[in-house]
């Protein structure tokens, strides 16, 4: 089964390991993530100003490209997913805006595309039990802390993936992989998002609180679906001139843990780049 797939900018550059492991685990489950033949950046922020129709053009072009391939598009990056899903919801609720964007792009987007995160496809199409049966190397004893962040879940009335205050989708996935799930109170707290560009000190403090909470709950690894969360949580733990403190916690994508549990070869884990704390020693890797 082929699923049209939108990788986005970051998964094509700084977060290649997310893209690689995502494609590999989908293939291992009998799905091929088929990259859209033509795509552009989604804009990385959903416009909150109601008169900013300009910012809806890029994501609508992506939805149009996806519509040429079928009736849905899968994303891995939580922010691309957020932007595409909210754009789809906005166009469905605001036909005047939908017409205006189509007029501008000169592309007749019909509005038929369902935007799915790979997590939703795993839960709704594959199912946790079927996934568990594919696990050949259960993550037994690995204390993994699911971290959701913001944009994967909120706002609920436009995203609707999971309970925005008490989510379970990553918990369920980790259980299916045989890991020991670490439930910690900061799992939906903001990492600082774009503040890392303008006010790195603030996002660093937010991220350190999140990592400290995971550490207090004896997590060995933090699991995310967002490349900006991954960066914000791991970058402050990078090796500094003073060396390492020794209590760093790697932050991995859920697809990377899946690649390990499904018994895929180490190059498909996608862990050799994009990490400031090497997660491989947890899995007896390099």
């Amino acid at each position, binding site marked *: 089964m082929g699923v049209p797939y939108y990788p986005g900018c970051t998964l094509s550059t700084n977060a290649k390991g997310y893209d690689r492991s995502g494609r590999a685990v989908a293939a291992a489950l009998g799905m091929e993530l088929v990259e859209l033949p033509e795509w552009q950046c989604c804009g990385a922020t959903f416009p909150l100003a109601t008169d900013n129709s300009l910012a809806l053009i890029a994501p609508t072009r992506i939805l149009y490209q996806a519509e040429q391939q079928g009736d849905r598009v899968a994303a891995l990056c939580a922010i691309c997913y957020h932007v595409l899903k909210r754009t789809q919801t906005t166009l469905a609720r605001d036909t005047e805006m939908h017409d205006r964007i189509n007029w501008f792009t000169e592309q007749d987007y019909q509005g038929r595309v369902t935007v799915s995160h790979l997590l939703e496809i795993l839960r709704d199409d594959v199912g946790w039990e079927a996934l568990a049966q594919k696990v050949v190397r259960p993550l037994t004893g690995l204390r993994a802390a699911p971290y959701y962040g913001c944009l994967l879940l909120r706002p*609920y009335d436009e995203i609707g993936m999971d309970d925005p205050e008490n989510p379970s989708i990553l918990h369920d996935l980790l259980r299916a992989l045989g890991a020991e799930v670490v439930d910690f109170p900061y799992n939906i707290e903001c990492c600082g998002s774009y503040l890392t560009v303008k006010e790195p000190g603030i996002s660093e403090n937010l991220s350190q609180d999140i990592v400290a909470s995971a550490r207090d709950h004896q997590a060995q690894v933090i699991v995310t679906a967002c490349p900006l969360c991954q960066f914000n949580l791991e970058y402050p733990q990078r090796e500094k001139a003073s060396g390492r403190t020794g209590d760093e916690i790697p932050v991995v994508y859920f697809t990377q843990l899946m690649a390990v549990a499904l018994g895929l070869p180490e190059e498909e884990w996608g862990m050799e780049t994009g990490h400031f704390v090497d997660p491989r020693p947890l899995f007896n890797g390099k």
Partner: protein
Amino acid sequence: MREIISASRIHSDLVRNVEEISGEHLLACNQCGKCSAGCPVASVMDMLPSQVIRMAQLGMEDVLESNTIWICASCLTCVTRCPKGVNLPRMMEALREVSLRSGVTKLDLDSLPPELVRELPQLAIVGGFRKYMK
């Protein structure tokens, strides 16, 4: 601080612009403070999110000088919890837009540490451009 509240101020351009850009009614907020209680960055803001909304309700232009509107990271925690269904992130965005559209720029690209720029995810850079400059 002595502040004079008048009907003309409450019907000011600021109120009109914020309501038009956000699509929200400022007076829908009844100042319960739940947004401020749950805001993850409230500790570094010079004014609480609910105070920013109160100033905007009263047409107080100095709200645009507050660092709060730029520290809000649009994490959407407040909109998830607001008992009145007020979309505060849209109001914050409107206040930023009023400021940016008047020519204010909040991101100095030259001041970014090169080692950070090398490692930053692309989406953070694109998002930063969109949030902090025109």
